[in-house]
């Protein structure tokens, strides 16, 4: 997108906001926006901000942000009216569309901000996706409430958030059951076993050549399918879920660790030999450190696999708590806001898990070229 089109786009967004004043907000009889001074002022200010943002200055992104924020605030506040929520008309959607256009252009400007030093670039690269995500949630909220979508089909983010805040005890119980008991136990067992078997297989070439094709084959299989078998063997409680997670984590760990152990080149191994290092010393001081990037790759893959495995396994039978259990029960009861609250919980848990593994990777493999600047 060239700068010229961006300028035109900002002007269109500003004009759209002002044009919206001429249309009715709702298909029901409702007071027009021109009757409310504060909202009217906010819309005009938003239009002015977009118009100012059209000049390619250092403050362009800032003006864009202000305009977007004002547009969002107005539309959210308007939804408080019973005449508008569910009956929104052209005037309302024009404000939303204009704000949307402004937001797209603002994120373009934001992403193109010139940055001098490291911290500024880091901040910018964090701000762009955050802005994008926040606006996505806003669009979801406005669409659901503006069109009056039934909460049985798709709850608004705000009602999910309320539900999340209200049912924290239930959520923390589910979190303990699914994440702390099933996922962490299974993850530790599966990754640990995969790691140890890989070391043994590295030592015995015959085993390695037998296990590697098998490991590649099994990694491509739909392993979650073993969930009903594990539930049958280990009962309804967390042990069966941990078993599914362990099996899911085992093969990626095995394959990756084997690949990592083979990374250390002939030159390095010869050096260790010339130091008269025993095989164990070579393993601990050369092969294992060199394998760490691969091991962490497996740990990261497994951190997402593990949560999925545990949740799916809970569909096959579980005690009366757990994320997967709650989801299947609440779907049946049509209370989708609780389902989305559980999903949000699982998402946050999954991202935090991944983030912790990534931080550990950074600490352990700080020597790796991918962390050099």
């Amino acid at each position, binding site marked *: 997108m060239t700068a010229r089109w961006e300028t035109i786009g900002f002007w269109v967004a500003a004009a759209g906001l002002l044009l919206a004043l001429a249309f009715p907000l709702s298909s029901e009889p409702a007071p027009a926006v021109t009757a409310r001074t504060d909202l009217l002022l906010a819309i005009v200010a938003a239009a002015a901000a977009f118009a100012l943002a059209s000049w390619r200055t250092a403050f362009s992104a800032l003006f864009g942000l202000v305009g977007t924020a004002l547009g969002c605030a107005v539309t959210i506040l308007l939804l408080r009216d019973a005449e508008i929520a569910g009956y929104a008309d052209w005037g309302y959607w024009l404000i939303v569309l204009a704000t949307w256009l402004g937001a797209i252009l603002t994120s373009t400007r934001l992403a193109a901000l010139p940055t001098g030093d490291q911290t500024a670039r880091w901040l910018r690269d964090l701000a762009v996706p955050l802005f994008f995500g926040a606006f996505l949630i806003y669009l979801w909220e406005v669409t659901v409430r503006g069109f009056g979508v039934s909460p049985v089909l*798709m709850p608004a983010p705000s009602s999910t958030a309320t539900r999340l805040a209200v049912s924290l005890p239930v959520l923390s119980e589910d979190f303990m059951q699914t994440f702390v008991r099933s996922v962490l136990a299974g993850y530790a067992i599966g990754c640990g076993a995969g790691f140890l078997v890989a070391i043994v297989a590295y030592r015995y070439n015959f085993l390695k050549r037998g296990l590697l094709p098998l490991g590649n084959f099994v990694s491509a299989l739909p392993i979650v399918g073993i969930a*009903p*078998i594990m539930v049958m063997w280990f009962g309804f409680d967390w042990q069966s879920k941990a078993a599914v997670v362990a099996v899911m984590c085992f093969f990626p760990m095995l394959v990756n660790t084997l690949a990592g152990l083979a990374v250390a080149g002939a030159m390095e191994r010869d050096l260790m030999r010339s130091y008269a290092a025993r095989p164990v010393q*070579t393993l601990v001081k050369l092969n294992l450190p060199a394998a760490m990037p691969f091991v962490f790759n497996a740990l990261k893959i497994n951190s997402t696999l593990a949560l999925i495995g545990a949740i799916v396994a809970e569909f096959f039978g579980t005690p009366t708590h757990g994320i997967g259990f709650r989801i299947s029960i609440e779907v049946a009861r049509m209370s989708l806001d609780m389902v989305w609250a559980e999903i949000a919980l699982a*998402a946050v848990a999954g991202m935090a898990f991944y983030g912790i593994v990534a931080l550990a990777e950074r600490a352990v493999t700080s020597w790796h070229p991918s962390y050099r600047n």
Partner: protein
Amino acid sequence: MTSSALALPRAAWRPAWVTERAPVLAVVAVLFVLWYLAAFLMNAPQVRDAFERNDIKYTLTDVIAGTMNGDRPVVPAPHQVVIELYDSIFGYPLDSRRNLAYHAWVTLSATAVGFAIGAIFGILLAILIVHLRTLEKSLLPWIICSQMVPILAIAPIIIVVFGAIGIRGLLPKSIISAYLCFFPVTIGMVKGLTSPDPIQLDLMRTWSANKLQVFWKLRWPSSIPFLFTSLKVSVTISLVGAIVAELPTGAQAGIGARLLTGSYYGQTVQIWAALVAAAVIATVLIGIIDLIAKWTAHRMGATT
């Protein structure tokens, strides 16, 4: 431990397939032995109980025979699974609900549609991301985050929502598998479309090629290897998605439904047979994509 750099080539009298296949066959054989052993050890208490309850005198051979042919064993022996597979595929007419091939077909069709949607969507997304810098900055982090969310958890919601607006059957399941399998394609294709060297891009510039020409003549051809690698990953994922999508709603047909009914009624052999069927489908799908990849590479002039 000898250094491989110094090691001489292995004795030449052993043909290559022996050194390659023998370890795999040995490991597989060991696995089968372990499987039979597990079947015996885990089923034995059940069988022994049954004998003692009915006051029948039994010997070890009776117990072994019992563990290998139990009706609802804890661990079915491999041959039981094979027999169940054969019976459930050839024992009933093709459109019967008791036929495994029918269920496999239901899952396979959902997988195929989902895979097609996911692959096309993934490729389009990658093309957009490569060409629009803003999207790369704002969308890519969220795509990665979206895979940290257990998407499978959304499966019941998608099915409920689609069911409410009157779309049932194949499509909701396909959407779920598409949602799962677009990710590897997008990531792989972003990598593939950006794989041409700056020097090659510069050459295109000196020929005053426009963006479309750069795309069709340079970016797209050089992304093909990446495309097939990610397609192989995502086809299995879409199979998993289709199977899991059948679980939460208690679907009537499909491999997932087969797993679910098997687990409700304790039909272990049925579960194992369904799992083997899923594994076979996954293998065949990957094989097909591999073949297409090889054919494409051949047509594009790859020498190996």
